[in-house]
């Protein structure tokens, strides 16, 4: 340990050089940690936003063929889907049912298009709690069965006041026009919308009535899991269970399952050819991963870019460390000779250099980490609600996600690379013949 102590104290001998080397390492690690934290946080944020917007981690939607031969988005066979849930009961944190519709909100002579989500908000307290109310409260919404929550910009365009009634017009699931009177009880910050779509919310019974569905029917059943790591397994189990009792669209590679719009009732009412019609509900099982494929590939690109930046910085640092330690070896030639004369083995001389590089790398990495955490914490405080990147923000704030294990691995990698870059100068120092090394002093 004496050699490690000498190495540690050696780092203070040429403080300026040590600070430059450590600073370069700190900067590299800072950049990498912030970028990694950003992409890590992005995954969590996007997952959260997707899950919030879609109401869960696994989504079961259904389509049926109407008497007139049209494809309608509804789950009539609720027993089949609720029965299948029992097989993954122990994995489920909660589940909810939803209906949705593209509507026109009419107030006086003004009309605005608005997508409405109908949900049982008694069950979905998390979603309601996460909403950013401009006016009104969640409690007021829960108290009114005919309550409606609209984005603030829509309310402004319509010239509405909270508590006023509006006419909501939409097509039923079979394509007939229908209207209902609903009362606006709150306004939401439009920047919190997912997918760039500003959503309005109503109670599922009210929306089902408008869509000409039974009160207990729904269009999608969404499941929150306790552990997202079990998402593929839980999805697979549900798919197999449903397939045993009903028609299920195959989970194919790529986008998996039916297109996104139809699964969430966004598509048109299509006519089904006679020979392609089916009985009962045809289910479709998708999950968060399926929906996030595009975003994940974008995040993957960002992660690769940050890795390339890290590698470039690492190479620059390695070259810097190697050159610096070549100089150090020349400066300390006499000292190396003295230590060898006193009985320090070649491996001991090597270890002094290696310990020194390790301490500088570790110190630099820790400094970079601290700086990165400080900057990330600072950035998390800023409210970017007014930006158009709300889908990548969690309630208007950037989220950073730095994994402990990843950080430790990255620090270890940095230390190993620094040690590797100092190895050649260290070996040269160890190979010095004591008499030659000491000649300067003798």
């Amino acid at each position, binding site marked *: 340990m004496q050699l490690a102590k000498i190495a540690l104290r050696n780092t203070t001998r040429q403080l300026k050089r040590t600070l430059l080397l450590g600073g370069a390492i700190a900067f590299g690690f800072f950049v990498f940690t912030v970028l990694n934290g950003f992409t890590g946080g992005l995954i969590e944020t996007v997952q959260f936003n997707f899950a919030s917007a879609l109401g869960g981690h696994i989504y079961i939607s259904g389509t049926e063929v109407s008497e007139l031969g049209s494809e309608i988005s509804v789950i009539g066979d609720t027993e089949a889907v609720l029965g299948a849930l029992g097989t993954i009961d122990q994995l489920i944190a909660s589940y909810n049912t939803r209906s949705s519709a593209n509507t026109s909100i009419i107030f006086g002579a003004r009309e605005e298009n608005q997508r409405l989500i109908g949900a049982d908000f008694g069950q979905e307290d998390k979603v309601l709690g996460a909403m950013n109310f401009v006016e009104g409260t969640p409690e007021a919404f829960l108290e009114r069965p005919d309550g409606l929550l609209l984005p603030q910009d829509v309310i402004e365009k319509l010239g509405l006041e909270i508590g006023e009634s509006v006419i909501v017009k939409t097509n039923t699931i079979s394509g007939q026009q229908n209207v209902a009177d609903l009362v606006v009880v709150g306004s939401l910050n439009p920047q919190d919308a997912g997918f760039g779509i500003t959503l309005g919310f109503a109670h599922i019974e009210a929306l089902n009535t408008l869509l000409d569905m039974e009160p207990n029917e729904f269009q999608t059943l969404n499941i929150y899991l306790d552990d997202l790591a079990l998402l593929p397994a839980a999805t697979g189990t549900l798919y197999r269970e449903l397939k045993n009792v009903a028609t299920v669209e195959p989970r194919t590679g790529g986008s998996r399952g039916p297109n996104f719009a139809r699964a969430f009732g966004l598509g048109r009412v299509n006519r089904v050819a006679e020979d392609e019609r089916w009985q009962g509900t045809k289910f479709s099982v998708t999950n968060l991963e399926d929906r996030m494929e595009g975003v994940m590939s974008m995040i993957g690109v960002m992660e690769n870019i940050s890795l390339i930046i890290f590698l470039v910085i690492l190479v620059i640092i390695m070259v810097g460390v190697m050159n610096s330690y070549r100089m150090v070896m020349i400066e300390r030639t006499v000292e190396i000779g003295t230590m060898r004369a006193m009985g320090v083995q070649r491996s001991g001389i090597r270890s002094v250099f290696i310990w020194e590089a390790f301490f500088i790398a570790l110190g630099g990495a820790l400094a970079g980490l601290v700086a990165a955490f400080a900057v990330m914490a600072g950035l998390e405080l800023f409210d970017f609600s007014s930006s158009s990147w709300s889908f990548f923000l969690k309630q208007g704030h950037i989220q950073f996600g730095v994994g402990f294990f990843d950080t430790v691995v990255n620090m270890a990698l940095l230390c190993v690379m620094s040690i590797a870059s100092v190895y050649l100068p260290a070996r040269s120092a160890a190979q010095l013949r004591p008499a030659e090394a000491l000649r300067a*002093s003798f």
Partner: protein
Amino acid sequence: MSIVQLVDVHKTYPLGKTEVQAVKGVTFTIEKGDFVSIAGPSGSGKSTILNMIGCIDTATSGQVLINDVDTAGLTDRQITKLRHEVLGFIFQSFNLIPVLSVFENVEFPLLLGKDAPSRSERYRWVEFLIEDVGLSKWKDHKPNELSGGQRQRVAIARALATKPSIVMADEPTANLDSVTSQAIIELMKKMNRELETTFIFSTHDPDIIEIADHVIKLHDGQVLEDYKTDEVERGLGALTQDKEMA
């Protein structure tokens, strides 16, 4: 009882396309407990011989025996171990480790190798050595806070830390004033008597040469005179290679 033996030792250095013969067939013996001065002008081969005895350089031909062991047959690891266990070094420029305190510099050799003494044993011995060289008040200071004489005292204490059989000192007083030089040589002599350690030092200072009890005078890479001062005083004459040379 001989502790160092050089038998017909030659050392040749390459110098560009030519070779320089630094040592030309030197033979002498040093007894255990001797206080030996290797004297001679610059370029006479003093440092080269000390380097070979100190096992930090090898002879081109001939034998260098330490405790009857021919050092030519040892591996680098064995030679390093030999240096650690048997030899101590005092350098002209002190060569203390700048980042360690006086105490840590003296303690450093004791921490090398597998048979390091216990912490308390080590502490007592280092304290004793530092006190013996008169630096108790300075034990926590760094080398750059000491005078030249004090640094050389630290170097002496460090050289004695592992209780070596032989201490090598290459011109230990060259960077010191005459009063300090005298004090350093007297300290070395005191240690030689107290610890029965063999001291071999090189110098070209005539006043210091005569303090030694065994003098080996070199000239142009050869032994000019080899005598023990007490035998000269008793009229027995030099041990001598000069007679043979004559």
